[in-house]
């Protein structure tokens, strides 16, 4: 919408900016839409120039080999025509802003991208729209890159044939903020230290965010929904995950947040809602001298709230809310999770299925919360039995073990200070799902009306006899 508004003021702005730039920064040039014009223009520009694009379509496959600013106004389109990468950057201090980057090639082996770069520190990719590109951007050696407010739409391909919305490799200090990535494969950060990933919205991909060997990242305020995995952090240290929303990430091995060999992690204020598994941790922390704090997160309506590898230890869960998960916490094989802390300094977690009481009204349950479901225990030992999750038979198994203590398995966790009420956790902005209350109302009333009509149909005029015409 801002784009449209901006488009109206183009003539004025164009004149103004062109005039100002002519006076101060050097030559600013606008080009028409003749084929090949853009590359020629970049070739003749001096380092540091601002190349301004007016609305129109420009041929892609261009290479930027000097520090330049490429600014589009009124959404000029750079079209790769389905061949190779649309823009290749091989110089520092390049800024690309306000353009539509469309139709890259679809060769995964060549990593065709909207913007591909190498040795391009301080590249700034701001407010662009990527359409029908294999990779959105693939940046190598782009230290201190700034990727902000881009709209990235991938190709309509089978998910493994797609490219990554954003891939950043060997680029420390990058800032990725406010981008919207849809229909990509992954958003990958490899060997990228000290990056910031904030307020992005990644949906309908495979791995919403994927960190490998990327230390010191701050990941906050992102919304990751309907991916196979919301975010997977691997082999990285000193990470902060705060106030992110992980929703409906439900692939066959789908997790909201997955952790593998992560050391030094703080997870707080996140929402894990309707995922297959909210949080999964394997060998994290891997160092024996480290504790991970997981605090003030909400795990709600997941099939499994938290799933931990059976050897996982030294995670401290405190002040979290576990609300109506199919299984609140489980271990991925037999054995308990007792080497993790489920309450910390007298503050445990809120469990929606806590059946205890709080006689002294201090907000802390007077008896411990334990997870000792026989059905879950059976699933851990015989994974096939997971097929019966949600059946009355599964509930019968649990009920039997509650009734006959001899059947009750060892608890996999104990929270000595369960919170009676859901702790106050500050709200995070979450995109609303489009459900119409009117439609629900209509559907329900329709069902009730149908029931009424059927029942009334039986009562209506039964005076006609059973075999009208058949009896004399």
């Amino acid at each position, binding site marked *: 919408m801002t784009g449209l508004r901006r488009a109206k003021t183009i003539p004025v702005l164009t004149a103004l900016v062109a005039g100002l730039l002519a006076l101060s920064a050097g030559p600013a040039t606008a080009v028409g839409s003749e084929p090949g014009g853009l590359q020629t223009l970049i070739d003749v520009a001096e380092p540091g120039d601002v190349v301004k694009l007016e609305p129109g379509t420009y041929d892609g496959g261009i290479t930027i080999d000097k520090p330049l600013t490429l600014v589009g106004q009124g959404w000029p389109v750079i079209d790769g025509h389905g061949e190779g990468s649309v823009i290749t950057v091989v110089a520092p201090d390049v800024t690309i802003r306000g353009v539509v980057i469309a139709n890259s090639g679809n060769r995964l082996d060549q990593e065709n991208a909207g913007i591909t770069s190498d040795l391009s520190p301080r590249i700034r990719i701001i407010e662009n729209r990527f359409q029908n590109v294999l990779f959105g951007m693939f940046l190598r050696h782009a230290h201190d890159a700034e990727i902000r407010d881009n709209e990235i739409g991938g190709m309509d391909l089978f998910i493994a044939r797609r490219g990554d919305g954003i891939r950043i490799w060997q680029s420390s200090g990058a800032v990725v903020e406010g981008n919207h990535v849809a229909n990509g494969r992954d958003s990958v950060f490899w060997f990228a230290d000290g990056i910031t990933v904030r307020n992005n919205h990644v949906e309908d991909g495979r791995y919403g965010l994927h960190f490998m060997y990327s230390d010191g990242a701050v990941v906050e305020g992102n919304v990751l929904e309907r991916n196979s995995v919301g975010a997977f952090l691997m082999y990285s240290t000193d990470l902060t995950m705060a106030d992110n929303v992980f929703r409906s990430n439900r692939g*066959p091995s789908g997790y909201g947040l997955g952790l593998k060999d992560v050391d030094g992690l703080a997870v707080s204020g996140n929402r894990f809602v309707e995922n297959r598994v909210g949080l999964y941790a394997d060998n994290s922390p891997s160092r024996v001298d480290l504790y991970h704090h997981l605090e003030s997160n909400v795990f*709600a309506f997941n099939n499994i709230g938290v799933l931990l590898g059976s050897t996982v230890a030294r995670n401290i869960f405190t002040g979290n809310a576990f609300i109506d998960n199919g299984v609140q916490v489980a271990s991925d094989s037999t054995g308990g999770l007792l080497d993790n802390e489920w309450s910390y300094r007298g503050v445990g977690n809120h469990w929606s299925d806590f059946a205890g009481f709080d006689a002294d009204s201090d907000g802390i349950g007077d008896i411990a919360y334990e997870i000792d479901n026989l059905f879950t225990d059976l699933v851990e030992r015989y994974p096939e*039995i997971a097929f019966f999750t949600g059946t*009355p038979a599964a509930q019968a198994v649990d009920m039997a073990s509650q009734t006959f203590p001899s059947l009750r398995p060892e608890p996999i966790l104990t929270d000595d200070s369960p919170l009676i009420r859901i702790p106050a956790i500050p709200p995070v902005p979450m995109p609303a799902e489009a459900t119409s209350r009117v439609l629900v109302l209509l559907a329900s009333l329709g069902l009730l009306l149908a029931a009424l009509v059927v029942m009334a149909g*039986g009562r209506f005029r039964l005076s006609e006899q059973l075999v009208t*015409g058949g009896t004399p």
Partner: protein
Amino acid sequence: MTATVTTPGFSTPRVFELRPVTVIARKVVREASRDRWFWLYCAGFAVLAGAITMTAVPDQNLIGSGGFGRTAASLVALVQLVVPLMALTLGARYLAGERDSGTLVFLLCHPVSRTEVLVGTYVGLAASMFAAVSTGFGAAGLFSALRSAPTDPVLLIRLAALSWLLSLAMLGLGLLISSTVKSASTALGMALFVWLAVVFLGDLGVMGTVVATRLPVGALFATVIINPVEAFRLASVVALDGSLDALGPAGTYAVDRFGDGIATIAVGVMVAWTVISGAVAVLAFRSGDQT
């Protein structure tokens, strides 16, 4: 229906006409609407379904607008218990009850064939179950709309349709019981046993087999899905989650092997139970000399 009956019933034996079927079906619906058991079931189902949607809605600031998935899952769990119980007992009690009270003899004195009586009863009970299921899901939807809880109307109607399909399969079994046993109390006892078997014992048996023999996942999937209650659950899980990925190795196997066909298979199982049990009930009722 506009089919007119011109054949005098006394002279030529008839097998099947449409008009007596609709008349009997309407009689059955009318009687269901007078049956206090039917209303008790309906009310119980509607109240429980409404209660699920009332209690399952948490603070939206905390979790955003999600949450209908778990509500719907609870509704599915409720249906697995209540709908088979309702349909089985309704079907089993009906003809056997008529027989006990002597009204069946009276009915069969009329120029109607036994097939027409059974099919008419089936259609009438199916219509009554439709009303019961629609009331329950309508109440659930109404409560969540009034509370502005997130609800997917399409999913609501799909689950209602699947529940009705389950009730058809269970009605078939109920009528089969009804047309083979002599008294209403025997029929009720048998219906309760069948309910126990399809809802609990079947699954518990397969679970035990898995523990004892490590049943292969393919066999596990096959033995589970032929149970109509399980077919309903699996079709509902597909409607809710899009696949069976959350159901462990057997679920993953089913997705891998059948892909999008799982829902079709599950619906096919319920239709097969409906048709086969209905057909066998017709045969049993026709050949039966007990009135």
